């Protein structure tokens, strides 16, 4: 039986918009295929984990206050996370998790939170708190080799700039910056995005991309995932695409 080990960081604090649902979805899709999915949690005050033993490291989004709380702790994890990433662990990052992996995050009051600097992008929040990017969003991504229209919900003040390899192009909504063309950040073992919803709810292809990556990352042979019945998920997405794109 294949096995995936995930480290869910700061689950108790960065769980503002149902982002923990992504973990439930990955676990569900693994269990349907007899893939063992172990999800460990790490938060402030816990013993430092050995990051490279994990196939995936997951960080969700939170409110500004929680984000400030965890940022100094996250800095302590920098070495471990960087090593895991270089060794091929998958980084799955939502909203705040996405921002904090860049160079820095400057909040609405001008305070700068240092990021881990794993990637070159940086994020600046507009001085007015009212100018948030909020709403449904549709992103076209080709990470799986085929175009997939990913539907989610964005809710962020921060404007992320300096992304060279985005997750996808925006068909509806804002993306990295207000009214921008690109959304998120992507490498073969990194998906960083503003999408809540949670992100994986209506987008089973993205879940499977990550599961497939994780179970195959150490082996020479390629294990193909068995197909699941995704009718509900696809109907759910179809309804939203019809509503958002056929205006």
């Amino acid at each position: 039986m294949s096995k995936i080990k995930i480290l869910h960081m700061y689950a108790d604090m960065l769980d503002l918009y149902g982002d923990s649902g992504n973990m439930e979805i990955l676990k569900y899709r693994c269990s349907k295929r007899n893939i063992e999915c172990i999800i460990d949690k790490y938060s402030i005050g816990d013993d430092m984990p050995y990051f490279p033993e994990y196939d995936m490291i997951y960080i969700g989004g939170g409110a500004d206050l929680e984000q400030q709380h965890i940022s100094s702790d996250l800095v302590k994890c920098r070495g471990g996370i960087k090593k895991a990433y270089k060794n091929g662990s998958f980084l799955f990052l939502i909203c705040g998790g996405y921002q904090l992996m860049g160079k820095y995050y400057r909040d609405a009051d001008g305070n700068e939170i240092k990021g881990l600097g794993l990637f070159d992008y940086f994020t600046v929040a507009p001085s007015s708190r009212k100018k948030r990017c909020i709403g449904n969003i549709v992103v076209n991504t080709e990470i799986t080799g085929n175009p997939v229209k990913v539907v989610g919900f964005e809710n962020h003040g921060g404007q992320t700039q300096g992304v060279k390899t985005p997750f996808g192009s925006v068909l509806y909504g804002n993306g990295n910056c207000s009214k921008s063309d690109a959304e998120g950040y992507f490498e073969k073992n990194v998906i960083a995005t503003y999408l809540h919803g949670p992100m994986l709810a209506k987008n089973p292809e993205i879940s499977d991309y990550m599961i497939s990556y994780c179970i195959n990352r150490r082996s020479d042979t390629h294990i193909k995932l068995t197909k699941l019945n995704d009718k509900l998920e696809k109907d759910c997405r179809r309804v939203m695409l019809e509503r958002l794109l056929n205006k």
Partner: protein
Amino acid sequence: MKKLLILLGKIIIKVLHLFHRNAGNLPGIILWHLSKQRCCSIFKVDCPIIAVTGTNGKTSVTNCIAQLFEKSGKKVIINREGNNLDTGICSLLLRHCDMSGNVKADYLILETDESHVPVVYSQMRLETLVVLNFFRDQLDRNGEMETLIKKINSFCRAFDGNLVLNGDDPNTARLGLANPKNERKIRYFNAERYKFATDKTFEASEGHFCPFCSEPLEYEYYQYSHIGKFICKKCGFGDYEPYITASNIDLEKPVFTANRHEYSPKLNSIYNIYNMTAVAAVGKLYRIKPEIIEDVISNYTVNNGRMENFMLGDRKTTLNLAKNPVGANMTLRVMNEMNGDKELLFVLNDNVADGLDVSWIWDINFSIFERVTRVVTSGTRAYDIAVRIKCSGYDPSKITVCPDLDEAVAELARTEGRKFVIANYTAVQPTRQALKRYSENGGKNNE
């Protein structure tokens, strides 16, 4: 200028009534634009104002407080329909004022939206503010929790009236420390541990940290969500003298004791106990006769989709509003605590008033389902809730998606057994209508 605005407002109400339109909010919106956004400043109110705010329970508590005074023979003005923004309150006062803007009553009892407390009561003098709880609710509309609490906190810093606070919610209890000069007018209500309280929280929640020194808060017990007995070991936040405490809580009867009186409310949920304790606190504060307080608390029930019962043919059906995970988790608990098989209809909308973001449904813990034999989903986001329930491990072949409400109700009624219906904010009234249509036509409207 003020008189002109009032005249205009009254004319708008008349016109709306002529066309049989609801004047609950529109007159206020028009005056809001004409009064430089200070539409509540045009009235002259001499009587005390009592405001009720918080995420859950505002409507119930506001209505009960109004009854305390009405049954004491006082004239009360209240926004019963829950038009609780500045524009709604303006529309209410327009209907009740004379041509000079004088509002004549003994008390104004106003349900007030959390984000509008500073707006409204910078324009009218507030005597008492009751704050029930703060949960994540419609985050895309209200902005983040912390931003909202900060707004109310800065209002409380300059507020010298009575503050009645839920002492078991760190988000509301912290308001009691906003204005140290006002210490003697701060009253906390709380509740002792009840049977289903837990040592850990299993629901996504707020309030992990002490707002004063950032230490993690320690809980002796959680009643539900983040409501419970908490303390900050470092600075002592949470150590206060309660004004009134609900004790001997037994939800099976249901019964509880507060201020040396035993009360038997009609609704058997822990959050109703908190709401009624808030009502008892206001009763005590205003020296309402004990028998009147008891009368109000023991007779209060609701017919607006809050644990409301219907018969679908011979099938007993209970509808409950759930506009956030806390409300939904509570309904699931009530459902589970009931014996036997049952079926669930979940109606989920994503209209503006609901919050466009439905990701909160992933904070509902569906894995606790016990003997739920079938699920029907409906609403503008019928598929989202279906996917969510499926991914909790529930057998998808037992889920039926019917976006159309009448079809959904007919589908629910098709089989025998006990039924539960959960509907979110804008879904609750259409769902009531659909349930009524079905029970009146005996299910013939859809065959």
